[in-house]
């Protein structure tokens, strides 16, 4: 693992087949998940808005998971100066911002018919908005500093500070009285939903995770090539 993170050649060799493989897995799981999604009956309370849950919950899970990846890559990049880890942190941020935006937007589209409002400043929604702002802050900081080494250090520190927000997002529905419901899949006593809903939800969650894995690897490869191109350009100029 460490060899892959410190040796770009080994990483490029491994990711050359891992990225398309994960992409193919994501496509198969995505189509399977959508099939289960649209054979699921309407919920007795939520009606057809249950379809929103199948795309909202995986996006929300991924918004947290990608940030854990961003934080871990930032830590390894900052402490061990592993070049791939730094590239991995940069590559994760736009993907995390995308998933968090989807979680907020699809949640809002569910909230309007079910809660009667597009948005409330409850602890879950607000902490996810803060998570989205951390992603945007990371991307803004990265583009604001010209010196790449300084930008990477500053962004890594910002990413590590943002880790504090993750338990707040996760436990917000337990610590505070929120309009957003509590955990209904990973909870004591097992999932609080029938297999007709659990299967499409988990299949699409795996599809989202595989899609993230594939896109993350593609973006890290792009970042490795970008750095290599810059080194070659500097060499040619010198």
């Amino acid at each position, binding site marked *: 693992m460490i060899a892959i993170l410190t040796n770009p050649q080994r990483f490029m060799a491994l990711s050359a087949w891992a990225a398309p493989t994960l992409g193919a897995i994501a496509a198969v799981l995505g189509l399977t998940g959508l*099939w289960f999604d649209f054979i699921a009956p309407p919920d007795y309370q939520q009606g057809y808005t249950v379809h929103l849950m199948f795309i909202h919950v995986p996006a929300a899970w991924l918004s947290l998971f990608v940030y854990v990846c961003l934080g871990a890559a930032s830590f390894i990049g900052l402490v061990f100066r592993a070049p791939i880890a730094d590239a991995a942190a940069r590559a994760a941020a736009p993907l995390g911002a995308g998933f968090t935006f989807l979680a907020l937007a699809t949640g809002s589209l569910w909230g309007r018919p079910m809660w009667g409002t597009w948005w409330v400043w409850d602890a879950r929604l607000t902490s996810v908005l803060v998570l989205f702002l951390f992603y945007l802050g990371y991307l803004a900081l990265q583009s604001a500093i010209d010196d790449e080494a300084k930008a990477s250090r500053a962004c890594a520190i910002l990413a590590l500070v943002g880790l504090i927000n993750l338990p707040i997002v996760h436990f917000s529905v337990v610590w505070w009285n929120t309009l957003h419901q509590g955990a209904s899949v990973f909870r004591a006593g097992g999932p609080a939903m029938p297999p007709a809903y659990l299967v499409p939800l988990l299949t699409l969650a795996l599809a989202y995770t595989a899609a993230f894995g594939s896109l993350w690897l593609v973006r890290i490869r792009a970042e490795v090539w970008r750095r290599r191109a810059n080194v070659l350009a500097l060499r040619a100029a010198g």
Partner: protein
Amino acid sequence: MLDFDAGKYAPYVWPAYALTAVIFTGLIADSLARARRWKRAVAAREQPAQEAPPN
């Protein structure tokens, strides 16, 4: 059988799926375009060095 009926919730369900499709398409297209662009840049910058006559 597949049931694409969303009843009175269609104005909320379909925009969410459309938005998800747009974001995924955008992320896939941007990621692949970046990889292609920088792979080509490396190839283009490595080529002159290889073609240059030895000193």
